[in-house]
C-alpha cells in the first residue's frame, strides 16, 4: 500500500478519484434512470388507472357508507329506526307502525337472520299502493334486507264476490341475513 501510494502521481490520482466518482455516479445515474423509466411507465398506465380507480372507489364508498348508515351499521342509525323512517316516506305514509325484533335465528352455520315484523300500530287498513311502495323501498334501499313475509287481506267482512274499498290490512316480515364473525 505504501509503495502504491509512493508511485502515485497527479494523473494516477485523477484516474483513481475519477474511477471512484464514476462508480458512485454510475450507480446513482442508473438508479435515477430506473426511477425515471418507472415514472414514465406509471404515467402511461398505472397512474391514470389508479386515479380513476380512486374516483370510482370514492363514489362507491360514499354510496356504501350511505347504505351502511341506513341499515344502522355505522352507528348513525338502527334498523328499527330505518324501517320506521321508510314507513313515513313520501308515497308510503303508512302512519305509525308496530316494529318488533323477535329473536334472531340461525338458518345455517356461520350466518344469522335478524328478523323484523312490521304492522300498522293501530291496525288501520291502507290502500295497497302504499304497502307495495313500502316493500319496494325496503328492498331498494338496502341489499341486506329482504321482505320475507307478506300478508295482505281486505278490510272488513266481505263475501267472495263482493267488491271492497281497496283498503287492506297488512303485516310484513323483513329479514337481514348477516355473517357471524368468529
Amino acid at each position, binding site marked *: 500500500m505504501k509503495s502504491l501510494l509512493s*508511485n502515485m*502521481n497527479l*494523473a*494516477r490520482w*485523477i*484516474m483513481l478519484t*475519477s*474511477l471512484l*466518482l*464514476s462508480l458512485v*455516479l*454510475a450507480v446513482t*445515474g442508473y438508479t*435515477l434512470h430506473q*426511477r*425515471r423509466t418507472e*415514472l414514465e411507465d*406509471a*404515467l402511461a398506465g*398505472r*397512474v*391514470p388507472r*389508479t*386515479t380513476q*380507480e*380512486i*374516483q370510482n*372507489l*370514492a*363514489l362507491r*364508498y*360514499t354510496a*356504501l*357508507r350511505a*347504505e*351502511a348508515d341506513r*341499515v344502522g*351499521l355505522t352507528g348513525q342509525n338502527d334498523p328499527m329506526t330505518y324501517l320506521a323512517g321508510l314507513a313515513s316516506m313520501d308515497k308510503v305514509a303508512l302512519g305509525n307502525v308496530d316494529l318488533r325484533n323477535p329473536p334472531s335465528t340461525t*338458518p345455517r352455520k356461520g*350466518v344469522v337472520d335478524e328478523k323484523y315484523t312490521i304492522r300498522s300500530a293501530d291496525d288501520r287498513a291502507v290502500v295497497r299502493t302504499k304497502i307495495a311502495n313500502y*316493500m*319496494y323501498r325496503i328492498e331498494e334501499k*338496502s341489499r341486506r334486507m*329482504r*321482505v*320475507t*313475509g*307478506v*300478508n*295482505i*287481506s281486505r278490510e272488513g267482512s*266481505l263475501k*267472495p*264476490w263482493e*267488491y271492497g274499498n281497496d283498503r287492506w290490512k297488512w303485516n310484513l*316480515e323483513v*329479514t337481514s*341475513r*348477516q*355473517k357471524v364473525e368468529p
Partner: protein
Amino acid sequence: MARTCGIRIGPRRYELLVLDGSAKKHKIVAFEMGEFPQGGEDPLGDAVATLKAAVKSSGAPVESVGIAIDTGLAAFRDIKLPDLDESKLEQVIKFEVEGELPQWNIDDVVIDFMKLDAASGETRLLVTAVPKVDLEREIEVCTRAGVEPLEVELEATAMVNAAMSADICRVDEAQVLVHVGETSTAVVVVDGGVLRSMRAIHIGALSHEPGKPSPGAEPDAPAAAMPEEAEAAEDSEADDLPLVIVDEEELKRMQEQAVRRIRRELGRTMSGARTANPIDAVYVCGWELPGLVGEPVLDVPVYELDVFEEDSGNPMEGAAPLVVPYGVALRQFGAAAVPARLRREELRYTGAFERVELPLAIAALLLVTLLAVFNIFELKQVKLRDADVNTWRESSNNFMVGYLDPMPKELADYLKRIEAENEPIAIETVDENGRTSVRDYNPQVDSDRSRLEQISYTAAILRREVKKLDDQLGNTGEVTQPQSALEGLTMVLGTLAELEGQIGRVAVREVDSQYQLGRSGKPDSVLVVLDLTFFADSTVRATENSEKFKNALDTKEWTVDVEMTNSSPFEEGELKGVTVDGFKVLCDFSNVPRAEEGQA
C-alpha cells in the same frame, strides 16, 4: 517544462542528476553523489535505502529516469554483417555474436548493438553484451528505491552522449573519452563525431581496495572478462591479490600504480585506434585520480571532460562524476547520439501505462463529467415526471374530497399528517384582469412515500374501506340473502296481469307470501298463497279461467309447484264464477338470471 533524471549506479558509488528544460536548453536543478554503505548484512537493502533517500532529497521525477551501469560489466565485440535492416539485425544478432562470447550462455546476456559504419555491402557493428543478472540487480535497486528506469545504458554511452551534446566531438578531429569508475575504466574513441570503438579497462580508482561489489551483488561474482581485456584483467588480478592497505604511503603508491596502468592502457588504445582524423585530446571524467588529467599520453593532452554550460547549475568543482548521469538525463530528453538500449527482452520497460496515463486521466475526467451531466439530466427528468404524477394525485384528491362523504378516518388522518409535515408555500397568481392574489399551497410531500406510492396508498385505503363496508353490508357473496317474498308475490301477480283479457275478471281477496328456508336438501323457496275470485258468464268458464291461470304459472321457470284444490262455484244474481281459496304457488328464484347492477 519537462524534468528528467539520470542516475549512475556503480559498484561503490552513485551519482544522480536532475535536468529541467529541454534537449536544447536545460538546467541542472539537483544532483546527488554518494557512496553505498559497505559491509552491512543486507547490501542490497542498504543500497536501496541510500538511493531512495537521494531520489527523495533531489525531487527526481520518478516517471522519467534513466540509469547508467558500470561499463566493466559489459563485453564489447566488433563484428561485420551483411547489410540488413534494423529488424532483421535484431533477429540475427544473437546467433551471430554467440560464437564471440564463449564465456556466457547467449540466453543469459542482453545483446545491444550500434552501427559503426557500412561499406561494400557490409555493416560493422559494435556489439555490447551485459549479463542479465547484473542488469536485473541494478534495475531492482532502482525499482525498490521507487524509480522505474525507462532505459539502462553503460557509463561509456552516457559519457559519449554528454560529450556530443557539449560539442566536444567535432567532425575534423578524433578524441578519446575516458570514464574512470570504481573498478573499471570506460574508454571510447570518437572520430569525426562518430563513435569508433569502445572498451572497458578493468582497472578503476578503487581497484586496489578489497571487496568492491556492486550494490547488492554477490561479493564473489566478478564480471567475466573478455579475451581482449584478459591482459588488463590479469594485471589487475595480479595487483589485487595482496590487497592489504598498510598506510597512506602504500595507498598513494597503489593509486599511482592504477593511474599508470590506466595511462598505459590508454596509450595502447590510442596507438591501436584506426582513426581518420588525428586524436587531438583525451577527455577524462568520473573518478578524479591525481596524475591522470594534465599529463599527456603519447603527446596527446589529457583534459577533464567538462560538458556543462556555464551557470547551468553544475558544481564549480568536482563535476567530473556528474558527466555520466548528465548524459543519461539528456537521453531522457531524446537527445542521444548513441541510443544504447539494454532494457530488452524480458527486461524491457514498456512504459505502456505511463504513456497513456495522461490521456487516461483526461478520459476519466471526461467520464466523470459525462456521468455527472447524465445524473443532472436524469434528476431533472425525474423531478418533472414526479411533478406530473403529483398533478394526477392532486386532481384525484380534489375529486375524491368532493365525493367522499364522510372521508374515511384513516385517509383523513393521513392527509392531515402529510399536510402537517410540510410548510405551506405562498403562491402568487395573476388573473386575466391583472389582479394579483396569493394562496397557500401545501405540497403534501410524504417523507415515507414517493408521489406514486402516495397515490397507491390512497387507493389502498379506499379499497380497504370499501371492502369493509361490502363485508358489513353483505355484498361480498359470502352470505346468500333469503329469497324475497315480495319478489314471489310480484311474479305471481304479474303472471295474472299477463292474462288480462283472457281469463275474465279476477278479484284478489287475500295474499300471503312467505320465504321458505330450504331444508333436507331442498332449496330455499317462496310460497305464495292467494284467495281469488274468478268472474265469468258461467261457472264453467270461470273454472276454465282458473285452470288457464294455473297452466300459465306452470310454464314459468321459477315455478316449482302450483296447487289449486279448493274452488267452489257461486251465482249471486248476475254475478257468476268460482272462488279459489288457498291457491298455492311455490317459487324458487335462485336460478333466475338477473341483470347486473347498472345494466338494463
